[in-house]
């Protein structure tokens, strides 16, 4: 067997390794006889680093040795790989959102009064992170509680021109009969990106 190039052997090891490889470690790959000098290793590593110019990966030296990694400029693309599947919102969250939409401006205390149970901080945070709910002021009572209202993104998401398009509380009794023109589907249903999942899983 003709000996492969030193840098290609190093490439194989670095690509397969689960953690950075030190020069000692790389040298140990060549077992007993014929382990290359550290200088040659360094040279080969430098060559490898040059090979990766213009590519998605780079060879870097970190604390415990050398490793191949994806260049940071592609982090955004890689992040998309790891998008988590959307979960579902809890009943409590949906109720809270609906109450804010209909009763805004409304404080957390008022929401709790209507729902009959307390509203968790995480629900309020989720709704605000999503951009659907924002603080619109503070009620002038002890503790100055925040008052919440819905945002333009809320209308956009549900494909509403204004809140008036929502059925009245009266009409809510019979959801199926009201507002047939309302778009009651999942807003993103059509454009939901194909979930890249094996069909058989």
């Amino acid at each position: 067997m003709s000996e492969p190039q030193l840098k290609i052997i190093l490439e194989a090891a670095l690509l397969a390794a689960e953690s950075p490889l030190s020069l000692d470690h790389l040298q140990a790959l060549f077992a007993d006889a014929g382990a290359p000098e550290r200088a040659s290793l360094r040279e080969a590593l430098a060559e490898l680093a040059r090979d990766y110019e213009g590519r998605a990966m780079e060879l870097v030296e970190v604390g415990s040795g050398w490793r191949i990694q994806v260049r940071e400029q592609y982090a955004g693309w890689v992040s998309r790989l790891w998008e988590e599947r959307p979960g579902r919102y809890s009943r409590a969250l949906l109720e809270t959102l609906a109450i804010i939409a209909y009763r805004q401006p409304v404080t957390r205390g008022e929401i709790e009064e209507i729902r009959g149970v307390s509203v968790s901080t995480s629900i309020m945070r989720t709704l605000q992170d999503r951009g659907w709910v924002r603080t619109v002021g503070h009620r002038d009572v002890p503790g100055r509680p925040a008052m919440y209202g819905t945002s333009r993104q809320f209308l956009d998401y549900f494909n509403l021109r204004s809140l008036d398009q929502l059925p009245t509380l009266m009409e809510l009794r019979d959801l199926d009969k009201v507002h047939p023109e309302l778009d009651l589907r999942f807003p993103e249903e059509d454009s939901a990106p194909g979930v890249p999942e094996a069909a058989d899983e």
Partner: protein
Amino acid sequence: MTEQVDAVERLGDDPARLRALVRGEPVTELPRDLYIPPDALEVFLETFEGPLDLLLYLIRRQNLDVLDIPIAAITSQYMEYVELMKELRLELAAEYLVMAAMLAEIKSRMLLPRAPVEDEEETDPRAELVRRLQEYERYKTAGEDLDTLPRVGRDVFPVTVPAPGAAPRQQEPHVSLRELLGALAEVLGRAEMFTHHHVRKEALSVRERMSQTLERLNSETFTPFIALFRPEEGRLGVVVSFLAVLELIKASLIELVQAEPFAPIYVRARA
């Protein structure tokens, strides 16, 4: 009767006189490789994956074709091994004994003259055994082939390198308007709100405008009252804004300030 004896010989009842075709050449000698060192025997016997595996071994060891098994010879060799397993108290699966019975039956059927059976095609008593042996052998081979395929972690190493800066992105759940309204209907039903003060048709745009107005105001500075109205929204828009201001005053959320009659009116949030 002599014809029958010939047939039996041909089927190899006596190993010494066995005639088998190996690549077209008749073989009359059995390879004598039965001797195995005693300490290795146990390990050896344990390597059999069952009666079919043992039979295949016995056949292959003699370079015989599965299609032409000398039943009597194979049966007696098979029984030797089964006896050995019993002596060594190896866990002897019942399958080995079932196979022994099957071999014995085939052997007897081949020895005995067959009573003519009407309308039934005569089949070789070994046919079923041969079918099973072949069937097993092909998967035994397939298993060996599988073992030689390149395999992750042994022959191929998938590459996964770190990607600094990349972080999982949380995809946000989808909500339908129906879900949202359904949730509200439920909570209202639970609160028996329908029967109380919320049955009137609510102008939700007023509520929305209340939020928007509040957001624009703060308690530090005064905002001119007229700045709350946008003529481009038309009459309806102005009315909605006005109603919103009234509602906000009623709720004590904002206050109006006028320095003197006919002076500009200012609004600010109640601190």
